[in-house]
């Protein structure tokens, strides 16, 4: 019985050998640069490792320390990450869909330019971000923000926008929202355009009156794969953010940990203190967090078809 099913499996594998050839290049790269590092991170999280001596197994000590003794983690990294992700994630997601839909309502010739305008900010992520925003929020009178507010008489003296713990988080949120029309936005834009036009006509016959009904009953259900994709991208994008606070303030950790996100915490331990084992345990916690939130979205947006097929 077992032998026959094994033989059957082998025969099927041989019949589909070409598929394996097709899948192989990506799978190899995937295993090397995603799978192996993730497994290695999990293994390292149970060790004490300073990158010079070989790792020493310490059991759950890293996790116990992280969960019971790391005040920076509980006081700053976790609350900051949650605040940042809860605001930037959903709002960025809704904006992406709304703008994608609005753009598709225009005649096709002008869409190109609006898409570009919305998408361009996400192109500036990383290097360009620093140059642009640092000067806008610069702490002296020469900063645009300061100069405008001084002119209007709203503030009396220049504010140290990015150095001041009071403002840093809000600035991070604003900048991230501004740059949030990224991959998810493009996918949704493509998705909305690929919705079968005849469905709308059929919908009209079936009594759909307003555009909102059209979106709710036709557009969104027909483009669920793209909606879910956008959601996952929004979650991962916001939870893995961290470089933004460093780019804005030029330091890690940020002043009074005001913009300290989980990734900053990983970098702090991994590349500044060289406690690789402990840093790995933080990244495992972060990966679990991302995974759990994404699963939640799967429940909300997913159709059974996607997980099966």
């Amino acid at each position: 019985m077992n032998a026959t099913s094994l033989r059957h499996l082998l025969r099927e594998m041989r019949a589909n050998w070409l598929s394996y050839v097709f899948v192989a290049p990506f799978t190899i790269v995937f295993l090397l640069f995603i799978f192996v590092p993730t497994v290695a991170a999990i293994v390292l999280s149970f060790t004490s490792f300073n990158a010079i001596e070989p790792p020493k197994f310490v059991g759950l000590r890293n996790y116990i320390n992280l969960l019971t003794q790391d005040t920076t983690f509980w006081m700053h990294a976790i609350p900051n990450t949650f605040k940042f992700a809860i605001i930037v994630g959903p709002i960025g997601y809704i904006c992406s869909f709304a703008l994608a839909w609005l753009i598709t309502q225009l005649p096709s010739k002008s869409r190109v330019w609006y898409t570009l305008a919305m998408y361009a900010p996400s192109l500036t992520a990383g290097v360009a971000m620093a140059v642009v925003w640092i000067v806008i929020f610069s702490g002296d009178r020469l900063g645009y923000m300061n100069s405008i507010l001084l002119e209007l008489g709203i503030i009396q003296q220049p504010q140290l926008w990015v150095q001041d713990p009071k403002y840093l988080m809000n600035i991070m949120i604003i900048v991230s929202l501004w740059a949030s029309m990224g991959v998810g936005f493009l996918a949704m834009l493509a998705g909305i355009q690929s919705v079968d036009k005849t469905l709308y006509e059929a919908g009209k016959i079936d009594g759909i009156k307003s555009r909102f009904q059209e979106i709710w009953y036709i557009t969104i259900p027909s483009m669920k794969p793209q909606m879910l994709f956008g959601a996952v991208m929004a979650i991962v994008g916001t939870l893995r953010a961290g470089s933004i606070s460093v780019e804005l303030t030029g330091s890690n950790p940020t002043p009074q940990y005001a913009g300290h996100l989980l990734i900053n915490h990983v970098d702090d331990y991994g590349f500044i203190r060289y406690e690789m084992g402990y840093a790995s345990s933080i990244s495992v916690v972060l990966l679990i967090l991302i995974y759990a939130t994404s699963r939640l979205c799967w429940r909300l947006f997913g159709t059974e078809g996607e997980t099966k097929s």
Partner: protein
Amino acid sequence: MRRVMRWIAPARRVVKKLTWFQCFLVLFLTGLSMFMLLPIIYLFNHAFKPASELFKYPPTFIVEHPTLKNFSDLLLASKNSIVPVTRYLFNNLISTSLTIGLSTFFSLLCAFALSKGRFPGKELLFSTIVISLMFAPETVQIPRYFVISQLGLINTYWAHVLPLVAMPVSVFLMKQFIDQVPNEMLEAARIEGANELRVLSSVIVPLSLPAVATVAILSFQGSWSNIETSTFFIEDETMKTLPFYVLTLTSGLSNSVARQGVAAAATLMMFIPNLIFFLLLQRKMIDTMMHSGIK
């Protein structure tokens, strides 16, 4: 008066074609676009400002006396250093084009097999890829370094390329699109005697061009302004890429504004290809959408 009418008439014809909703929309989106583009317009202006305007109070937004001095400073500053800026640019071009090519090709092959193939292990592979969509490379930079050093890729172009080719997002996106291609079309091609590669190139690729374009844009973006690979996997200064160089220019910016102009010029150099590439492929994307009529 008549001349004014001659100007207005075509405009009115265009406006008449639009509904009220669309008119409102055009106004709203134009306003929003201007707002979204402000920092970018600012970047363009900043890069061409002479030193006197960079430090003027109150700060100006639009450049009054544009100059190319920042760009020549950028090139001159790097001439004195060991590695000229052109070398960084060259490295960037090589690694980015390799990344785009390999990433698009690999994910197309993989997505095709995942979507239309029927092989044991398919479910496992796809669900692994879907789970890894939630993967954040930033979190496992340390083990990644060990993998790359074990493979002997440190200080090679492959260290810039291969980690970025492993982008589950592209396979996922591509598969979602290929799923929408009806199986009957593939069968029809096969009956006419096309082998799998031919099916891929003459049925799948033309029908999923939007996805191909999107993957190309994504890998371009991922690679062109990537700092991580240069920071973590490359020690040799001559093998680092342009964004890394720009980073060294901007890293002191939050404290001083001394090199703002040069930094803005370098950033603009980074940004323009991004813009052009996106504009080119995006047009194609929308056109293909209209002509191929994916349903």
